[in-house]
């Protein structure tokens, strides 16, 4: 009997290992769409900078990286890279590179960067398994691991090539929470130090660490309110807080923020409160007075109020920075739109529609409320944490699409708990009925808990799972339908990952009518042209979206890039793009611009081009230069933004318009449409015939997607006064007459005007007379 149990336990752990390993493989494999379709390439915008920085670190070493001043970005300001990035991602990738290379496995750093996020997705599902196991049971944990590996909300930021902070940060987030739950449960110093270490990794990786440092104190605070204070919580929190605080301050980019900004004050406040509370408890335990309960209550409330007041006073006194705009906009949802257009302009910062919730989470979005319900009804210390996590994350995800990423893990965990509970009930059979083996892999993982638990179930958990005589048919139907919903989720995830989240956006693909794919490689074509044909120190002006790519692929100096730290510099570029040629030329000369790069999608119907982003340029420019740039001037009197004949003249003559449509009016794409037909905006452009005086076209890619212009040198000859007079608005009163004509020679006054007092000199009369003659 004992031997049988032992073998069963061995079989069980083997199964767990197999399932978890296949989870990792599944997570890795399902993220390779882009690599298979295109090639092993870095995606999007930010990853290009991360790649460039990692490359720098791998070549020059860690300390050189920390001291790196990048003079090729934000010309002429430059950027201190070492102090303005979260280095965790680069350290992770380059240390993997270092280890592999020292093992004589030579691999290019780029390949490590490309495959880093898929590898970490496997770790994330392991962490999700651990967290769910701590919260509920192992069966739910396994389900959570599987779902975590494929859920689109997480895949969106971790496909191969998406080499970004979030790729490793979600792992760090879930792992920190797992360790926190562990330390709350055990109250051991070991686990809370591990929590602090994991938190340190998270701080080094992503700005979202603020979420952890607010959620854990909130958890502790709520536990205090619930009267669930214990020594375990005290040990876990105080050691985590101190260690985490000291370690997080080691990251150069974070620096003294943990003691100087409001975002971190909740943690410090709860720390102080916890000290006060435990001190009071200590007094109580040593005193002989009977009725100290009320006193303790009031003292605690007083201490909380005092801590709060201290923080508020320090904020007013200026010792603590108030909430920064990015975080503040989460609370006051209208704030960003009014005050920080640069945040509002990013599509990731828009609020979330119900469609995107459903798109990213599918069945789980319906199922996870039941998980919340279950946990609240069976609450204990650690479950309170996950409930708080769920409620706060769902709020943040509602405000910003981007934060869907932090919501996804908790939804998966809770919905897997909900699914698992239901399966527990409906898969429990009194008789030893055997079910046919399922060939579907997903199915197997779902069914497997039943097999493993069969031995125990009979004796121990019969009362818990037994739901009575429902009938085998009904039971199997319920199980089958739920399994089918899960399968639909798997199919949905695969489709979403393949179709929506796997385009590198550096290489575009379009499908032909016959179903074959055409790859548009215009971006790389243009960047490579820049790399090959321009001077090494050439300065390229473009909108900030393309800054990182230009720096990464073309290796040229840029004026602004995706690290939008200097709003006024961006506004200056926006102003150059949105003013007319003369004004723009002045700005471009001031900024030493050599080339201007723009994205134009009108020829192939690419909607993410600069004309469509143009209004944001105008808005951002208007924010800094309200006198020169006015958004309303770019609209038609009816308030429309249109590029055709009815468009506003300011728009039709601004630099961006001219650069986009230079010589486009001569091109006829299709015999059905007139020449100069913009396929993105479905309009024939309004200004076809114009000259470009201060720029000359340098390069246009195959599909016109990227256009590069060279800024002309100033003329050798200084412009004559004539033009100046023209510009200053003084109009010449008389016509210019050639001196050579016979009649009007110098010195002759024809029909001299008579001056009569009180009357105007009249010239027209004499003209009229002449006509009559």
């Amino acid at each position: 009997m004992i031997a049988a149990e032992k073998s069963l336990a061995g079989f069980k752990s083997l199964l767990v290992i197999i399932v978890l390993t296949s989870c990792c493989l599944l997570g890795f494999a399902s993220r390779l769409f882009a690599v298979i379709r295109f090639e092993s390439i870095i995606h999007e915008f930010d990853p290009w900078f991360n790649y460039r920085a990692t490359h720098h670190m791998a070549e020059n070493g860690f300390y050189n990286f920390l001291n790196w001043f990048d003079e090729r970005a934000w010309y002429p300001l430059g950027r201190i890279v070492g102090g303005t990035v979260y280095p965790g991602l680069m350290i992770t990738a380059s240390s993997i590179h270092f280890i592999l290379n020292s093992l004589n496995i030579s691999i290019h750093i780029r390949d490590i960067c490309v495959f880093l996020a898929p590898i970490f997705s496997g770790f994330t599902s392991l962490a999700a398994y651990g967290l769910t196991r701590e919260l509920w049971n192992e069966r739910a944990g396994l389900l959570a691991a599987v779902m975590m590996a494929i859920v689109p909300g997480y895949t969106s930021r971790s496909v191969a090539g998406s080499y970004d902070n979030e790729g490793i940060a979600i792992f760090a987030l879930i792992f920190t929470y797992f360790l926190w739950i562990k330390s709350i449960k055990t109250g051991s110093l070991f686990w809370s130090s591990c929590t602090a270490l994991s938190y340190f990794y998270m701080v080094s990786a992503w700005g979202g660490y603020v979420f952890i440092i607010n959620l854990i104190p909130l958890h502790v605070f709520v536990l205090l309110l619930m009267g669930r204070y214990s020594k375990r919580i005290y040990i876990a929190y105080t050691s985590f807080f101190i260690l985490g605080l000291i370690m997080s301050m080691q990251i150069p980019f974070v620096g003294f923020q943990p003691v100087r900004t409001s975002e971190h004050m909740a943690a410090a406040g709860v720390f102080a409160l916890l000290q006060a509370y435990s001190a009071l408890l200590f007094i109580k335990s040593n005193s002989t007075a009977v009725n100290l309960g009320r006193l303790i209550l009031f003292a605690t409330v007083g201490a909380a109020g005092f801590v709060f007041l201290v923080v508020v006073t320090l904020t007013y006194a200026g010792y603590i920075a108030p909430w920064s705009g990015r975080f503040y906009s989460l609370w006051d949802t209208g704030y960003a739109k009014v005050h920080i257009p640069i945040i509002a302009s990013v599509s990731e910062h828009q609020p979330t529609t119900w469609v995107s919730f459903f798109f990213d989470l599918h069945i789980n979005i319906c199922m996870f409320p039941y998980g919340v319900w279950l946990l609240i009804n069976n609450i204990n210390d650690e479950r309170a944490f996950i409930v708080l996590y769920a409620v706060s994350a769902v709020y943040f995800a509602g405000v910003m699409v981007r934060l869907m990423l932090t919501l996804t893990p908790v939804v998966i965990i809770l919905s897997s708990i909900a699914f698992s509970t239901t399966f527990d009930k409906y898969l429990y059979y009194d008789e030893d009925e055997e079910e046919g083996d399922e060939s579907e892999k997903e199915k197997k993982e779902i069914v497997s808990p039943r097999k493993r638990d069969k031995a125990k179930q009979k004796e121990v958990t019969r009362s818990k799972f037994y739901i009575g005589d429902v009938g085998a048919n009904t039971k199997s139907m319920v199980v089958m339908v739920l399994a089918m919903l899960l399968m639909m989720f798997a199919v949905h995830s695969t489709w979403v990952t393949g179709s929506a989240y796997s385009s590198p956006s550096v290489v575009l693909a379009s499908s032909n009518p016959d179903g074959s794919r055409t790859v548009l490689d215009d971006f790389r074509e243009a960047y490579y042209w820049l790399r090959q044909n321009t001077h090494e120190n050439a300065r390229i002006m473009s909108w900030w979206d393309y800054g990182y790519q230009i720096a990464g692929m073309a290796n040229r100096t840029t004026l602004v890039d995706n690290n939008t730290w200097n709003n006024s510099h961006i506004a200056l570029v926006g102003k150059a793009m949105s003013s007319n040629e003369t004004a723009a030329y002045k700005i471009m000369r001031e900024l030493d611009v050599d080339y201007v790069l723009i994205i134009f999608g009108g020829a192939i119907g690419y909607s993410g081009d600069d004309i469509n982003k143009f209004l944001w340029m105008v808005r951002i420019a208007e924010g800094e230069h309200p006198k020169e740039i006015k958004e309303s001037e770019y609209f038609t009197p009816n308030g429309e933004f249109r590029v055709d004949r009815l468009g506003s003249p300011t728009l039709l003559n601004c630099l961006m318009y001219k650069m986009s449509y230079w010589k486009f009016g001569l091109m006829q794409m299709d015999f059905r449409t007139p020449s100069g037909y913009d396929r993105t905006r479905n309009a024939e452009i309004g200004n076809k015939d114009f000259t470009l005086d201060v720029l000359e076209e340098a390069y246009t890619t195959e599909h016109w997607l990227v256009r590069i212009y060279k800024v002309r040198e100033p003329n050798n000859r200084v412009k004559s006064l004539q033009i100046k007079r023209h510009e200053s608005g003084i109009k010449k009163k008389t016509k210019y007459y050639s001196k050579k004509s016979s009649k009007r020679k110098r010195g002759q006054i024809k029909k001299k005007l008579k001056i009569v007092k009180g009357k105007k000199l009249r010239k027209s009369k004499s003209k009229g007379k002449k006509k009559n003659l």
Partner: protein
Amino acid sequence: LNNKIKQLLEWNMRRSIIRMNGEKFKTYIKSGPRNYSVIVMLTALAPQRQCSICRLVANDEYKVVADSWRTSQMYSSKLFFAVVDFDEGQDVFATLKLQSAPTFIHFPPRGGRKKADTFDIQRHGISAEGMAKWIGERTDIHIHVFRPPNYAGTLALGFLLTLIGSLLYMRRKNLEFLYNKSYWAMAALFIVYCMTSGQMWNHIRGPPYAPRNPQTGEISYFHGGSQGQFIVETHIVAILYVIFFFGVLILNEKVPTTDDSRKKQLFAMAGLGIVIFFFSLLLSIFRSKYHGYPYRCVIKLVFLYSVRVRVEERFSLDLSLFFSLLIR
């Protein structure tokens, strides 16, 4: 001219917005000479005119702008704010050929009015900030909008808190309900459903409730694209989510606690039916919004399964594959 300015300033001392009738309008605004700009709100404040925007929104926002101007340091006789009510100056409306209220018009010191001198509510929106921006564009006077701090919200919050506090105090003998987990769960689920059904999007973007097509008079309940949504749509979705939740609840908590075997079976089937039906409904709504989504709802498949009809071609390949796996 000096007399006019004097008079206007005197009025302005008393009120930030000068109330005008047809006669005053003629002398102070319509006829020259002037060296000051006037912003005029033409409105209909009388309740019987039934212009709720005029009374509730436009008037307050306009007052905010005018007050900020009067209290600002740049305050001078360059700019005045005036209001003409329809019932006091119908002739003004007639001369300006206005059909609708509220309308904001800027009368520049010299020269005729241009098209842009009429405030475009569609574009700027009726907000004090939008108006200040427009005034800045037209007159080069930049008014920094200063809203009187809104005590109403704070007061309401304080009132609510004291109400809750006093209720708690009154019932201090019986605080059991605070320990009721169901209440807390319901509160948490309320937040969850608000957010997942996109109420925050509604709050930030302010979509129409259920727009009516002006041509056909048809009311559309669902936004056609995946980028937008209507308020009624989010309510429908939230209700579907809640019903789905009840389906799961029946399956998990109603079935085990029922005694009768037949009733158990009935409840189980009902819960299952709710889960399938409402999830399919959600999926089909999602499908109609997310164009090109290839997977069909399960509802028909399950129906087919129960009556054992063969899978038809029109179902997508993947699902029929699964389906055949299932019925094997």
